[in-house]
């Protein structure tokens, strides 16, 4: 039996850190940093009254990351505050997705999270004028080479991520939740109809949709650097909404309507297995993700994990692009990497 990575052992059973040797603390912090989970661990241990078990030299790293996570939350709220008047002027609803949505909605998944981009959903018809207006506000397309621009615009029907010239924040503007040419057809109108308006006038997806968007993103994706963190996001969301007895029923129904039941099952199995240590019947897809979502650190990338990641990387492209676009794209990427 392959040993379970230390980070997963600790996530399953936080009390494990009591009396841990310095060499293990060293490994744990490195794995947790690579996984982007340091701040979240700090907050979880604080809630569980476990901070006294953490040596002072280690605690400094956790506190430092918590400060960074708080700074990112402030930054997200600030950027959205600055964007609101622009969207109001253009009469476009400002709907935040993923991490930004967790912050806006006050979800548990905002805890201890470091944010890279601010993801927004806008109606497709509004894209062009929004991009023009944002340029005036200092938001410039960040992928400037011609191939990447074409990839985003013509093939994925998206605008490339926008970076603010002064503040360096990155805005990722979507009009779908899954590529239109991809193998999952997600009717975006249903998401808009179910969207929830927040007190400050911005929007987020309905709770079931927030969970499913995270599930779809993770379990059709091929990059696993933040995979384990995204899985903990999902678990936090499920716990938060699970207080409502009818939530799971509604979640299942919505998953059926969207045709993503296999992905939801994958999420539930992986979450139960990796984060709670509960045995669950696992099919091929679940087994692959069970490996791929392990922490991305040299201390725990054994061969089965690398193979699973490779296979899921190819699957991710296959799900998102038809073959006639996929082959040239993969060839181009292979050449550029070499």
């Amino acid at each position, binding site marked *: 039996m392959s040993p379970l990575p230390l980070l997963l052992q600790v996530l399953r059973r936080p009390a494990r850190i009591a009396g841990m040797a310095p060499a293990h603390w060293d490994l744990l912090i490195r794995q947790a940093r690579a996984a982007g989970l340091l701040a979240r661990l700090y907050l979880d241990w604080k809630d569980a009254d476990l901070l006294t078990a953490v040596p002072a030299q280690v605690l400094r790293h956790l506190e430092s990351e918590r400060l960074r996570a708080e700074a990112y939350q402030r930054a997200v709220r600030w950027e959205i505050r600055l964007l609101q008047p622009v969207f109001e002027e253009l009469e476009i609803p400002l709907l935040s997705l993923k991490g930004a949505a967790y912050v806006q909605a006050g979800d548990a998944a905002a805890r201890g999270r470091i944010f890279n981009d601010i993801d927004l959903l806008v109606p497709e018809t509004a894209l062009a004028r929004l991009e023009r207006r944002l340029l005036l506000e200092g938001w410039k397309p960040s992928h400037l080479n011609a191939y990447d621009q074409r990839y985003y615009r013509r093939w994925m029907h998206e605008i490339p991520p926008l970076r603010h010239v002064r503040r360096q924040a990155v805005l990722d503007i979507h009009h779908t939740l899954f590529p239109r040419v991809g193998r999952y057809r997600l009717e975006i109108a249903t998401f808009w109809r179910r969207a929830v308006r927040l007190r400050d006038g911005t929007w987020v997806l309905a709770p079931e949709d927030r969970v499913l968007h995270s599930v779809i993103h993770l379990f059709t994706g091929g990059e696993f650097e933040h995979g384990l963190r995204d899985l903990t996001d999902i678990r936090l969301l499920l716990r938060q909404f699970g207080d409502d007895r009818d939530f799971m029923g509604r979640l299942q129904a919505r998953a059926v309507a969207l045709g993503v039941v296999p992905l939801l099952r994958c999420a539930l199995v992986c979450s139960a297995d990796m984060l709670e240590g509960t045995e669950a019947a696992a099919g091929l897809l679940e087994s692959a993700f069970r490996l791929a979502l392990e922490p*991305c650190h040299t201390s725990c990338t054994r061969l089965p994990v690398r193979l699973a990641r490779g296979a899921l990387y190819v699957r991710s492209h296959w799900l998102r692009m038809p073959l006639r676009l996929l082959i040239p794209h993969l060839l181009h990427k292979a050449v550029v990497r070499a």
Partner: protein
Amino acid sequence: MTQAALSFTARLRSRTGLGLSIGPFTVRLHSPIPEVARALCILYADHPQVEAGFADFHIAIEPVSGLRRWFRPQVRFRLDDTVPFRPLPYSQAYPLFEWGLNWCIASHAHQYLILHAAVVARGGRALLLPGHPGAGKSTLCAALVQRGWRLLSDELALIDPGTLEVTPLVRPVSLKNDSIGLLRDFAPDARWGPPFHDTAKGTVRHLRPPRDSVVNSHPAMPAWIVFPRFQPGVARQVVHLGKGDTAMRLLAVAFNDVVLGRRAFRTVCRLVAQCGGWELGYADLRAALAGVARIVR
């Protein structure tokens, strides 16, 4: 190669690397590059070495593999699994370690307010020398240290937001271009590391920190804030700064004020309340030291 250099080389190449205690941090360093071992051997000779355990930073300075090995070889800085910067020419392997370590600390030590400043101390009182690169803070810092001030840091001031004390981070003092000549004339007996030419900052050379600063290292409370300004050919100038001006200048050289937010602002305000602020324009080191003597009297 001396016995000490051989020992450094062996440890740097071993599986667990070389463990160094640098200020409040434990650094584990790996490198197969002989020049790195030689420089460390001179400049970190007095720093305690640490056996394997918990390390704050796992750093590797390694040659870039592939075709680059033979044509204009390069080195890269690795922090655990990540490579945060672009590679540099092979000859700059050791400065890359110092610059990289600065970045590691400035990015991961938010329990402190981190200012771009040199810090020296007399008794328990600290003199902060903040400034942007090229202002002359390292030069003045090096001169003060050669004249008996205790070195706490030459680049990063680690300020405890609670107590306002500066935590020592004693490392080699990094000097550039003309400063190197100035210090050689000023302190002919000082111990230097090897020179590194054609870097982005010009020629760079490091001064070994005094043994006493390394071994008798303890925090100090800031008492004076002096912004150095090295201006060749201009007469010495000591200008007293108002509190507001001092505070704004300090915030301008803070690395992590955005991360700390309000806490950074409050810490700076408290610092400025308890310390006087000055700007010291100088062209030669003796005049600068006399200026400092006037300020701290």
